[in-house]
């Protein structure tokens, strides 16, 4: 099989790394080779985060090159736009519509473009935005945005949904299992 390239983007603190872990573990559980990589240096919240998951028979480089992503999952609209050039022409983009101000905007040094979603659609006509935060809240915890996003993209992955669900069950802390299951289902239905 061809290598399936996934890019996950978001803001530090949104759970990008946990979502990446779910996809990587699911690939392993499906008997595929996988490499997952993100750059996490500074522990602070609020920086731009990008993570790669590459799934295939044999995966060499842990890095996804621009123009080669089959799927871009962004937890924030501006970050979707920032990494949109990673997509291949027929690539798919799913993003959370809830925006988070970069510090530059919060400090009044830059303006958050008010046409981010139009720009996304112009660059990628098939892009889908969802209200992941409210779905996560309905599931019981606003922090479950990452599982909502995973739920939403399940049908586009070369992985079986029940494998992903089982992985999420295994890595959730006890009281988080319920919320994460609801978040996955909520995302899938969005």
């Amino acid at each position, binding site marked *: 099989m061809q290598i399936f390239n996934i890019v996950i983007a978001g803001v530090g603190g949104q759970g990008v790394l946990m979502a990446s872990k779910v996809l990587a573990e699911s690939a392993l559980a499906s008997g595929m080779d996988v490499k997952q990589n993100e*750059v996490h240096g500074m522990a602070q919240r609020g920086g731009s985060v990008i993570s790669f998951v590459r799934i295939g028979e044999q995966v060499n480089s842990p890095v996804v090159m621009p123009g080669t992503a089959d799927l871009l999952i962004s937890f924030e609209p501006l970050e979707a*736009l920032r990494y949109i050039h990673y997509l291949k022409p027929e690539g798919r983009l799913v993003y959370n519509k809830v925006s988070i101000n970069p510090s530059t905007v919060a400090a009044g040094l830059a303006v958050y473009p008010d046409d981010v979603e139009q720009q996304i659609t112009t660059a990628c006509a098939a892009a889908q935005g969802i209200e992941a935060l409210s779905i996560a809240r309905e599931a019981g915890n606003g922090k479950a945005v990452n599982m909502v996003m995973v739920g939403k993209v399940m049908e586009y992955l070369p992985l079986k949904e029940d494998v992903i669900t089982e992985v999420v069950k295994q890595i959730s802390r006890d009281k988080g299992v319920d919320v994460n299951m609801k978040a996955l289902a909520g995302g899938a239905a969005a």
Partner: protein
Amino acid sequence: MKKIISGNEAIALGFGDAGGVFASGYPGTPSTETLEEVARLGDVYCEWAANEKVALEAAIGGSIAGGRSLSTMKHVGVNVAADPLMTLTYTGVNAGLILMVADDPGMHSSQNEQDSRNYAKFAKVPMLDPADSQEAYDMVRAGFEISEQFDTPLMLRTTTRISHAKGVVVPHAKVEPQIGEWVKDVPKYVMLPNFGKIKHVQVEERLLKLQEFAETTPLNRVEMGDTEIGIITSGVSYQHAREACPNASFLKLGLVHPLPERKIREFAASVKRLVIVEEMDAIFEEQIRAMGIEVEIGKNKLPLCGEINADLIRAALGDTTTKVIPPVEGLPQRPPVFCPSCAHRGLFTILSKLKAFVSGDIGCYTLGALPPMGAMHSVIDMGASISAAHGMAKVNALAGRDEKPVAVIGDSTFFHSGITGLLSLAYNGGNALVIIMDNRTTGMTGGQENPGSGNTLQGVAAKQVEIAPLVKALGIENVAELDAYDLEATEAAIKKGLETPGPYVLIDKNPCILRYRIRKPAIKVDQDKCTGCRACLKVACMALGLTASGEKQKVRVDPNVCNGCGVCAQMCKFDAMHAIEGENNANL
């Protein structure tokens, strides 16, 4: 059983499975998780040292006492540990000793991008360079064997894309740890000149033996493909090159120092075009060219700075890659920022207002240099805040400049290298205001324990050093507390510190909100009272933002982000910002 783990986790697991006994390191991206994962193994002793020099020296002791020992650090940490390293290479080891160093090409989280392979050459020690998690795991065991066979310390080098990339690992059967004898051997371990002279000769002989070993070890392997292009490479560069040239021939080096000269000659002779793919310095290329071998593509086409990737290799070989969607230009940057409710925010709001020269240090607080605060004016290395401020003050005095520098340093950095600087400053009659942000953790790297946090790496209750009495013992008389959440008091305290002649130390003891998960109700802006003056935005908090464009833009607080510290509210002259009792929706 197959696992998917990062290079750092693989090294930790490899250490446990290779009979590792003692591990000591200092946190530093991208090396940090290695020791944290050793701690998670549960049955192997490990500890955070106060700095990398101490960590390596402790590992030397562990080796002398007969236990396989590991020391972990980031690339710049080896500069701190270079002193023991350069003599350790003479003494050699008793039980195997591995110095794991994580380089950071591309400087994702570092102040420089030095190439640690230079240290292997400099110290004349063998170095292994894994290309994925499985190799990282395997090379710990191989490394201990080489270390013991050749009586040498061994460097295990990773880069960010190895340390932090997860790949599939199949672990081997565990070797049970065996602790050898603790032997007194003066000529081996006492590096007086007479013994050192003998040892230096042995080091050179050892290097020749290692070179022979390099010729035959399976750690260096040839993968013949199409003979048009032959690529010599190592580490993650191998993976990028495989991706770019799946059909080429490869000499993939696992032992990257010393180099196998005969093997390289043979490989070079068997291919038409020789290509060397290495990140950062031209270490292989310089040595291979010095052998008189013709290299077609190396640093003439590939960058010395930053990371290598498959596209760069394709471009160097003349292949073009077409990008379909162009990157979107001009988007607002999203740099990392102080966490909502971090105590550093109040400090830098005031330092920015007072316009003092701030001599900074390595930690979260380095972000105080970024706009809009711009309140940090030099950052060199761990501990330099205090020592550089001292030099500035001395020269300022000579120049007749009546301005006192401010040094800002965190607790872990102070323990690492700040104490000696402050001792020297007190001794030499210095004149600086030193602010120690004692948040009881090593924040930047994710909240590791340190000598002030009250716990060890393995979760055992520990001695907790108090900074104020320590500072007084160093000879500083003026020591006061600071509460950076109180802007008025902070301004007064800093002004007093600047106006009082001589050394002055302020200590803020507010804990790290991330490490200690502190939650407070969010702030809300009364839109009737807000005049849109933007004074509050100077605190640079991502919870703040202006309302959608309109006639008069006002400030709003994002309740999904705000953690209610109230520093912004203290900037408001119109009483428009208040906490909403009982609410905290912070999601980050």
